């Protein structure tokens, strides 16, 4: 294979890993717990910023971008820190929104939280460099391995690392969904009154899964920024959340395998399809078409196959 093809394939592999993690994270929040997490993208953004800042190193007076809390941490640490930040952010947002509020109102509050986050990150330049975002994030592991970050060997190693982390995330997600905790969450989703009647605390249970989802979303963002070396507010505007929602709904919300298929179709598939399309129309014409397709797919699936390509398994439990 030529260098360019190898470069492309390894980058694609890293993207697939990142989108799998993001979709599994959203599936925990939306598919399993039924939370309309319309601010999901801010967890990915927070994770990306955390990882970027902790990889870039301390801000110097001469540096061209402004941010706070910079440090040089070796590879897995920025990702772990991102997970912590994502979980904390989810706890804060969850504590505000997940109280006894109609679910559509919850969704609206979360949507607005996403808008506020963009507004603040764009205008408060000292926080994470405003609208320009952060760039030139050093590639992780390249120094330790003694490889050039622009060589194909490094690319493949990094892609495999991302996939390895995705596998670990899958293990976590699968463990949660098949545990009694996952069962309680599904009960809450399907019949809240019944779950409350047998003594379950909806706020505490939902907050827990919301935080796990936030942490995994942040991990996906951290890996994404390590892969592409740059991150700015325009990469996480609120509609991005709905491309992940589309992936989860189309794949089959509540089903880990289905959601992975959805991730391959929507975020990965669309991105790549657009890349290979000839440039037609004005600027952003293809981008608009992409969103039209996402909207249509959502409507078509909600109407014809609301449970997705691979529907959630019907679980039977023996009477105790």
């Amino acid at each position, binding site marked *: 294979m030529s260098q360019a093809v190898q470069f492309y394939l390894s980058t694609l592999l890293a993207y697939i890993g990142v989108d799998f993690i993001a979709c599994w994270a959203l599936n925990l929040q939306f598919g399993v717990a039924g939370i*309309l997490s319309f601010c999901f993208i801010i967890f990915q953004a927070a994770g990306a910023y955390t990882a970027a800042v902790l990889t870039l190193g301390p801000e110097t007076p001469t540096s061209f971008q402004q941010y706070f809390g910079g440090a040089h941490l070796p590879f897995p640490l920025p990702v772990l820190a991102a997970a912590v930040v994502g979980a904390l952010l989810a706890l804060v947002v969850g504590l505000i*929104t997940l109280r006894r*509020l109609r679910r*559509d109102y919850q969704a609206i509050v979360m949507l607005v939280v996403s808008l506020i986050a963009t507004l603040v990150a*764009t205008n408060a330049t000292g926080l994470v460099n405003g609208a320009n975002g952060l760039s030139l994030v050093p590639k992780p592991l390249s120094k330790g391995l003694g490889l050039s970050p622009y060589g194909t060997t490094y690319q493949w190693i990094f892609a495999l690392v991302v996939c390895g982390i995705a596998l670990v995330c899958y293990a976590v997600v699968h463990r949660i969904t098949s545990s009694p905790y996952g069962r309680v969450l599904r009960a809450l989703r399907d019949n809240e009154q019944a779950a409350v009647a047998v003594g379950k605390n909806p706020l505490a249970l939902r907050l827990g899964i919301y935080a796990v989802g936030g942490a995994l979303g942040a991990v996906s963002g951290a890996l994404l920024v390590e892969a592409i070396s740059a991150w700015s507010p325009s990469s996480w505007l609120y509609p991005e959340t709905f491309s992940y929602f589309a992936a989860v709904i189309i794949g089959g919300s509540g089903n880990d395998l289905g959601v992975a298929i959805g991730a391959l179709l929507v975020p990965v598939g669309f991105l790549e399809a657009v890349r290979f399309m000839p440039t037609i129309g004005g600027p952003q014409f293809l*981008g*608009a078409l992409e969103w*039209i397709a996402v909207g*249509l797919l*959502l409507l078509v699936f909600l109407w014809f196959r609301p449970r997705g390509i691979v529907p959630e398994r019907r679980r039977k439990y023996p009477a105790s």
Partner: protein
Amino acid sequence: MHAFIAALGFGIVTAAILAIASVGFTLQFGATNIFNLAFGSTMTASAFVAYVATEANLGLWGAVVFGALFGTVFSVLLNRAVYLPFVKRGARLFEMIIVAIAVTLLISNIIQAVWGASFFTLKLAPTPALNFGALAFTRDELGIIGVAVAAMLCVHALLHHTRLGQAMRATATNPALARNCGIPTTRVIDVVWAVSGLLCGLGGVALVLVTTSFNPQTGTEFIIPILAVAVLGGIGQPYGAMLGAVVIGLMTQLSALVISPEYKQAVAFVTLVVVLLLRPQGILSEVAEQKEVVA
């Protein structure tokens, strides 16, 4: 002082536009409980119809008439073609909100695909400014304030002095009971969508009439202040929406005097979140309602 007067003037115009749009939004939401997030994109679509009208040299009246007409027809069709089938099939509140999001994505991106992501201006002659003491308004702005007041009076008269309005209020309060009393609720709901769409179209045209330029995202973003107004006034309460429009409109513009103008939008955002968390039933109403979607 000058800055304050200018901001006050902008605030009054913003309040008028918000009032037109929010009364339409809240009327429809109160009656059907469908969170029509596509309301903002429908405003944009109406604005682009008005743009086409001005490009065809139909002038201001052409823009207003075609924009309002489009809003009306489109809203009724949107309900009949998309929302109603989902509701009839038993879609729940949270599914409807995803449907509404999908519709929003469709409308705003179809506009973007057709017209591109650039900025547009209505091809109209600038109108002279008229002074009222220290306040100055253009003729268009005065027209918008007039339309807002007229729309409020008409909505009041419709709701309280006609049999149709009575039927609308009955349907909004208890659809099953209304149906059993012989009210043709489906037709009443159609009328609700039409009135809401008319106000939506007018609001969309008004919105782009006072801005120097607009793009395919203009109205889509306007949905948040509309939601803030509707929620502040109490969902389904036209008077609350009028009051809310004045509060949010003035607060948004006057806030620019004390905080950085970039954060102007945050006023509506924060109001919306705070009201939803503290008084989800709005400031005017007594009880929080738990309803399911109505068709």
